[in-house]
């Protein structure tokens, strides 16, 4: 591991200033991903700016009925928060389906959103990876790509985003509050993540050195009827091979509103706008849910080993929505 200087900033402005002055500095949150990547030699910061003691660790109700979640709120505390459990079960479920008890005690909200892909080629410095080393190629495209993307990938990168939390936040139209060198900025989560394209090393639209300070959930009464379904290779403590965040609002049997987002299918948490479009205004049925998933996945391009993700994603869409419809 490369030696690094350690800095504990007094406030957000100081944290951002250090990143602006130090081209190879990185923020350190819970460390559950970054520390591991430093051990693997995948990330080699020369300064760590520890943001975990900044006063960003509160969850507060907003006047509009929404919720503001500080960037350093730990995943376990957020999942256990009574308002999250009651008003945004999709969020609590996504958090609880992720990692292990110990890691949830460590991982932060902001860090979770900015964690790196678990593509094994990205994590292996002996392999070609355009995300880790731009221009070096992509060993995954024709390698073992079972766990990788089926939607929106490029010849340069087929990685998926690993976060469960981000999928739930995408379904909830979350606003991400960031602080950049020239001040604070709000970004809708749909605009935070990038498609891989020809620059998979750029995963978000955040400026270098931007610090996520909070995420803001809009009020969404329909989210009381919401859930997160995740399929893994084992019952617990594994990344998704498929996941869906779902919010369903029925008027009688007619879909008044619906929010759907998929995990483990793309470089970004995948908001399923087309599926939502198919569902909205129609009487709910299992068949409609299946049709909606098919509409969303129509442009999927499975790789050699991951064609199973299409029927899997379709199946969990149907199951999640059917469960919500009957709850």
């Amino acid at each position, binding site marked *: 591991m490369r*030696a690094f*200087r350690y800095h504990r900033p007094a406030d957000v402005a100081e944290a951002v200033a250090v990143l602006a002055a130090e081209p190879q500095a990185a923020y350190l949150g819970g*460390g559950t991903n970054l*520390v*591991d990547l430093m051990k693997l030699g995948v990330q080699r910061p020369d300064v760590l700016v*520890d943001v975990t003691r900044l006063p960003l660790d509160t969850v507060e109700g907003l006047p509009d009925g929404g919720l503001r979640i500080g960037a350093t709120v730990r995943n376990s505390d957020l999942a*256990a928060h009574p308002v999250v*459990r009651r008003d945004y079960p999709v969020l609590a479920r996504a958090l*609880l389906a992720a990692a292990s008890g110990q890691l949830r005690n460590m991982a932060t909200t902001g860090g979770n959103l900015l964690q790196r892909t678990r593509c094994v080629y990205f994590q292996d410095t002996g392999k070609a990876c355009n995300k880790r080393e731009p221009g070096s190629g992509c060993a995954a495209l024709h390698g073992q790509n079972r766990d990788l993307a089926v939607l929106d990938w490029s010849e340069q990168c087929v990685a998926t985003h690993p976060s469960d939390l981000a999928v739930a936040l995408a379904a909830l139209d979350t606003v991400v509050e960031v602080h950049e060198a020239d001040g604070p900025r709000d970004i809708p989560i749909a605009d935070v993540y990038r498609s891989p394209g020809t620059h998979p090393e750029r995963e978000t639209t955040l400026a270098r050195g931007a610090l996520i300070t909070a995420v803001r959930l809009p009020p969404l009464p329909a989210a009381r009827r919401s859930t997160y379904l995740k399929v893994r290779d084992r*019952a617990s403590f594994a990344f998704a091979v498929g996941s869906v965040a779902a919010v369903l609002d029925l008027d009688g049997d007619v879909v008044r509103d619906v929010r759907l987002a998929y995990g483990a299918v793309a470089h970004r948490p995948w908001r399923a706008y087309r599926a939502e479009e198919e569902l909205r205004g129609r009487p709910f049925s299992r068949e409609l849910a299946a049709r909606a998933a098919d509409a969303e996945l129509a442009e999927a391009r499975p790789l050699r080993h991951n064609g199973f993700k299409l029927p899997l994603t379709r199946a969990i869409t149907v199951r999640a929505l059917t469960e919500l419809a009957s709850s």
Partner: protein
Amino acid sequence: MQGGPENATTIDERHSSRVTVEVNGASREVTLDNRTTLLDTLREHLDLTGAKKGCDHGQCGSCTVLLDGRRVKSCLVFAVTVDGRSVVTVEGLAGPDELSPLQAAFIAHDAFQCGYCTPGQLCSARGMLDEVSRGWPSAVTDDLNTPAELIDAEIRERMAGNLCRCAAYPHIVAAVRETAASS
């Protein structure tokens, strides 16, 4: 420090820190290369070899300790970040000549074979039982708004971050179940 040695053994001031941490109730002070994990600090600098290094990547749980009362994986924590905080390791779960109820239950239920994962299992179970007493739900909790009853499925899910290569899982579950029931 660009161009410098990657794994220099000498401590240089820019890349090291003086860290004060309370470990099992006693204040300890040590100067460390910033790269030193909490796990390596405990084992190599503080002579506390209870916490074990299994995978060193946060996947096996054998390094689990309590940090400010919460279970964490000490292999993924840089010690410099815990300055001023409090750590409890397996050595601190009970006095030197006694067993905590959890430790006694592990023995009574034969909840280990080789024992390598046991310190992590014990610290994890201690933290987990506190989480349950605070009413935290888990992925297998049906109703998020009602405190979960600690059925075996709950114990298994909540202990999923601790692997046991000897597969003593049924006995670990029994030991945790008994400890929870009697507390």
